[in-house]
């Protein structure tokens, strides 16, 4: 059979390990001076090798720890023994870290002592955890130290057992000498008979028959003798299935007490055997009692005489030169209850010979003073008759106090651990306790099993955290675990996925903290797991939603750009208006200059439309109807545009408007086209009307006249009818010409505008009307100061002046002297002409819009033809302007002409 060759690591390999190790490594020479530090060390302290060598590095030891370190190092160097010491060392970032430094002597190949080699580990992490239990431990330690007790921590499941120095000292060893320790250390030194008893008592405690485990047992001392120990203990932690897990306890050396009792017993036997030796024995007795602080007494039943030992006097505080105190005084030493018990037991022993053993409460002037352990038995003669009673008493006040304090402290620890158990099992988070070195899950709660989709049985002790983690998520966890294990971090948080047996992924948020349990030196850590799958899913959905929203926003942007839509968003309550770039362009505003609120928008409205648009907004806000309106705006340069606005109102749950979001579009072009179309339509209807009434009427007359002419035999009649026929034909011709003229105006797109001095044109017209003006002595008043020139076709200006002035004269009132006022002014940049007379006036309720229609007359005036106003209206509107009238019968009329020089 071939065996693997066993090779030591070669030098190079060793070097690599030393250099790359996470451990801080040092070496000192045979004079105790340090001559080597590895790279990790230098990186940790952030210092150069030159600074560290010799004793240079010790500058960085915490001042409080320096002396202790220095003494320990020198002492062990002197005796050339390994040492282990904890101290704080300053890291390169200035933070003191707790280091565990282990050093040991080393020799060269010739066996010659060369110095010490050692390594340091950062244990700050575990120090911190210890800190939490430190107070508890200090408290316990104080108690234990006070009782001079040995302590033991026994992991019942693994057998691992930790003892303190005192435990070893009781049996004459140092802790180091009996290390490594386990529960076998106890069985090894314990007396076989007492081990049996101990096991029985332990079983009873484990089954709950006994609250405490308590045993008196003998142990083999280093010197070969048996020492008596009082062992006490209690289970502090249980496994989930109810098995005892961790037990804490104490050892007390009770050899002296045991020996004293033994000695007493022996001496008494001897006393009975030899009265001569009584004196000597009494002396011995006295001595032994002094050692054990044990008092004894004897009662002669026959004489009722009582003898107290010297120590008993001392214990109870009486003068030993006097006889023992009387019954009444003796009673005062105890509480009433204790004295009653003692009296009863004494009487019973006296009558029946049954021995007693009691713990009594001592009192002084009604106050608790302490505890005393008493034991009594009957003394028989050869005839088996009771001749006396004897007993011992020991002051156990201090021990009792210690026990009490210990109990309280242990209950406190118990409570904390129980609370943790409950939290662990009922937590809404998954929780596991993991062996840091193997990754195996040692403990878990039901929630964890649920999250990972497995049963607790499948997991516990079988599965490690790596095997249930999503392959992509292992590395990060792994890396951080390394930092945790090295003590570089106290804990960490990670989001990762578990894989369930059915392949499902579970997103979890894991919080990891390392834990060190008392009595368990194996590294482990706690993981708290929160299932965040649904959160992740909604995050994902949100992200998708956002992408979708962004995409649709982009689409909207492109669409709005393509449609040349301006978009606005108005916060109703804050009156904060947001315009996009297109809005500013549409409204001819500078984005930098403008204050963005409703007022800005409103300020752009064409004055006549302002009220209507405000009302439409108001209706949209109150919910009467949606905002969908065409309105005019004026740019700062005076140009006018048509805007079509649509908007939606966003409301809160109560229906109050919060925001109004809308689009604006320049519809000037289509609106203008629409207006042209409308006016053309109107003209067409007018035209049809003219044809129907004004042209057909004379034709009907002609038809009728021709008919009667044909049927008439009278020359007289024929002359009358043909005369009428002539006038009808003349009328028809007139209407026909007017019609053609009006059609020509509408088609006369090429007519030229020119700058006209209004006064010049008016003077010409007035000149041609001079005879009529003179005839009626009309007063013509002219005020063209505010607008004296106009860009307009000359022909139209003449026509407007001629018709309006001649109308004013024609329809003058015969009751008064005609006054005709002509005035110009500028309104919104346009010239407005007003011609006011004090003539007959028109009943507007009858005239309505017909005043400007062809062949519509409103006076029974022989010269009324109904063509002049129709003409000038056609001309004014052909230029894009407007004419309107205000009139009251008997008072006069005012005609208004708004000139526009742009041909529509």
């Amino acid at each position, binding site marked *: 059979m071939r065996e693997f060759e066993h090779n030591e690591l070669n030098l190079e390999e060793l070097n690599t390990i030393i250099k790359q190790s996470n451990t801080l490594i040092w070496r000192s020479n045979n004079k105790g001076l340090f001559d080597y530090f590895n790279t990790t060390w230098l990186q940790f302290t952030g210092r150069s090798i030159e600074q560290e060598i010799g004793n240079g590095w010790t500058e960085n030891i915490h001042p409080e720890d320096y002396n202790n370190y220095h003494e320990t190092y020198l002492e062990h160097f002197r005796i050339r023994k390994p040492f282990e010491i904890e101290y704080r060392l300053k890291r390169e970032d200035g933070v003191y870290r707790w280091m565990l430094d282990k050093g040991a002597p080393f020799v060269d190949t010739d066996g010659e002592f060369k110095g010490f080699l050692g390594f340091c580990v950062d244990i700050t992490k575990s120090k911190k955890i210890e800190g939490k239990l430190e107070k508890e431990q200090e408290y316990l330690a104080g108690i234990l130290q006070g009782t001079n007790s040995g302590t033991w921590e026994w992991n019942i499941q693994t057998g691992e057992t930790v003892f303190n120095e005192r435990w070893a000292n009781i049996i004459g060893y140092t802790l180091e000498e009996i290390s490594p320790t386990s529960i076998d250390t106890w069985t090894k030194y314990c007396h076989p008979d007492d081990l049996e008893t101990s096991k029985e008592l332990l079983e009873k405690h484990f089954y709950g028959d006994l609250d405490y485990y308590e045993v008196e047992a003998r142990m083999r001392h280093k010197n070969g003798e048996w020492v008596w120990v009082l062992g006490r203990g209690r289970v502090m932690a249980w496994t989930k299935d109810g098995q005892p897990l961790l037990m804490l306890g104490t050892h007390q050396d009770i050899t002296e007490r045991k020996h004293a009792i033994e000695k007493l017993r022996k001496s008494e036997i001897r006393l009975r055997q030899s009265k001569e030796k009584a004196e000597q024995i009494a002396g011995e007795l006295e001595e032994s009692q002094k050692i054990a602080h044990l008092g004894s007494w004897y009662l002669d039943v026959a004489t009722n005489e009582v003898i107290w030992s010297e120590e008993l006097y001392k214990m109870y505080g009486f003068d030993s030169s006097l006889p023992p105190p009387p019954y009444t005084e003796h009673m005062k030493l105890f509480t009433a209850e204790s004295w009653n018990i003692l009296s009863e037991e004494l009487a019973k022993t006296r009558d029946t010979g049954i021995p007693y053993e009691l713990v009594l409460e001592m009192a002084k002037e009604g106050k608790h003073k302490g505890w005393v352990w008493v034991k009594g038995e009957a003394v028989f003669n050869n005839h088996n008759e009771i001749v006396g009673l004897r007993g011992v008493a020991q002051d156990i006040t201090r021990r009792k106090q210690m026990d009490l304090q210990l109990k309280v402290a242990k209950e406190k620890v118990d409570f904390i651990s129980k609370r943790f158990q409950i939290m662990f099992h009922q937590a809404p988070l998954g929780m596991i306790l993991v062996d840091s070195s193997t990754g195996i899950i040692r403990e878990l709660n039901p929630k964890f099993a649920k999250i990972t989709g497995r049963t607790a049985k499948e997991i516990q002790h079988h599965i490690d955290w790596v095997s249930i983690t999503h392959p992509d998520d292992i590395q990060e966890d792994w890396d951080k675990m390394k930092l945790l294990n090295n003590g570089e971090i106290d804990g960490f948080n990670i989001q990762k996925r578990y894989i369930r047996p059915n392949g499902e992924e579970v997103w979890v948020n894991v919080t990891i903290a390392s834990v060190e349990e008392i009595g368990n030196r194996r590294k482990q850590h706690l993981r708290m797991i929160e299932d965040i799958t649904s959160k992740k899913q909604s995050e994902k959905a949100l992200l998708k939603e956002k992408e979708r929203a962004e995409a649709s926003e982009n689409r909207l942007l492109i669409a709005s750009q393509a449609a040349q839509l301006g978009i606005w968003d108005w916060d109703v309550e804050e009156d904060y208006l947001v315009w996009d770039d297109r809005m500013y362009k549409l409204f001819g505003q500078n984005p930098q200059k403008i204050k963005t609120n409703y007022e800005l928008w409103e300020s752009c409205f064409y004055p006549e439309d302002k009220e209507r648009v405000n009302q439409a907004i108001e209706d949209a806000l109150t919910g009467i109807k949606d905002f969908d309106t065409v309105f005019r705006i004026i740019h700062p340069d005076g140009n006018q545009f048509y805007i079509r606005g649509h908007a939606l109102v966003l409301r809160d749950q109560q229906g109050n408007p919060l925001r109004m979001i809308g689009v604006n579009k320049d519809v000037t072009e289509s609106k203008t086209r629409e207006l042209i179309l409308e006016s053309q339509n109107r003209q067409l209807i007018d035209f*049809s*009307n003219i044809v*129907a*009434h*004004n042209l*057909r*009427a004379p*034709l*009907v*007359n002609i*038809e*009728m*006249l021709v008919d*009667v002419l044909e049927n008439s035999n009278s020359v007289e009649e024929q002359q009358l009818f043909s005369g*009428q026929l002539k*006038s*009808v034909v003349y009328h028809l011709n007139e209407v026909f010409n007017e019609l053609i003229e009006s059609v020509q105006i509408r088609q006369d797109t090429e007519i030229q505008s020119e700058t006209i001095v209004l006064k010049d044109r008016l003077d010409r017209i007035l000149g041609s009307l001079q005879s009529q003006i003179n005839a009626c002595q009309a007063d013509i008043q002219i005020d063209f100061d505010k607008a004296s020139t106009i860009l307009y076709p000359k022909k139209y200006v003449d026509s407007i002046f001629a018709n309006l002035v001649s109308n004013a004269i024609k329809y003058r009132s015969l009751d008064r002297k005609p006054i005709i006022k002509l005035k110009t002014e500028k309104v919104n940049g346009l010239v407005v002409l007003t011609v006011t007379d004090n003539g007959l006036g028109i009943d507007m309720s*009858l005239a309505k819009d*017909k005043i400007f229609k062809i*062949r*519509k*007359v*409103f*006076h*029974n005036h022989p010269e*009324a033809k*109904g063509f002049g106003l129709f003409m000038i209206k056609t001309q004014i509107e052909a230029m894009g302007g407007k004419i309107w009238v205000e009139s009251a019968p008997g008072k006069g009329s005012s005609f208004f002409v708004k000139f526009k020089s742009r041909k529509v």
Partner: protein
Amino acid sequence: MTAIKKLFLVDDDKVFTFLTTRIIAKNNLVEQVKVFGNGLDILNFIAENIHDVASLPEIILLDLNMPIMDGWQFLERYIDLLPKIDKEIKIYVLSSSIFPEDIDKAKTIQAVSDYIIKPLTGDKLINILRKNS
């Protein structure tokens, strides 16, 4: 067929009223024809004689296109007077317009019995009077 006592002709076209009156007279079916030049004149006449049933006509022939108050405006105001008139008056619109909108509009007015396109011939007149008796 009983003769009509009074027929009012409302039209501003003098040639037309002359010729039409002549046609009505020739047929000997109407005792009296009265001509009004515009809507306002006949409206005022009716308003003034509203209780004098004898002076009111049985038939009105109404032109649409007239100065001062046209046929439409007369009809609007006539409807207001109607409840006070204690006589059945038939109104016929007599217009040169063959414009369908005018014809349709006239027929929607309750007070208008029919729409007659000019000229008024003897046959058309007899038709009206027949319906009226």
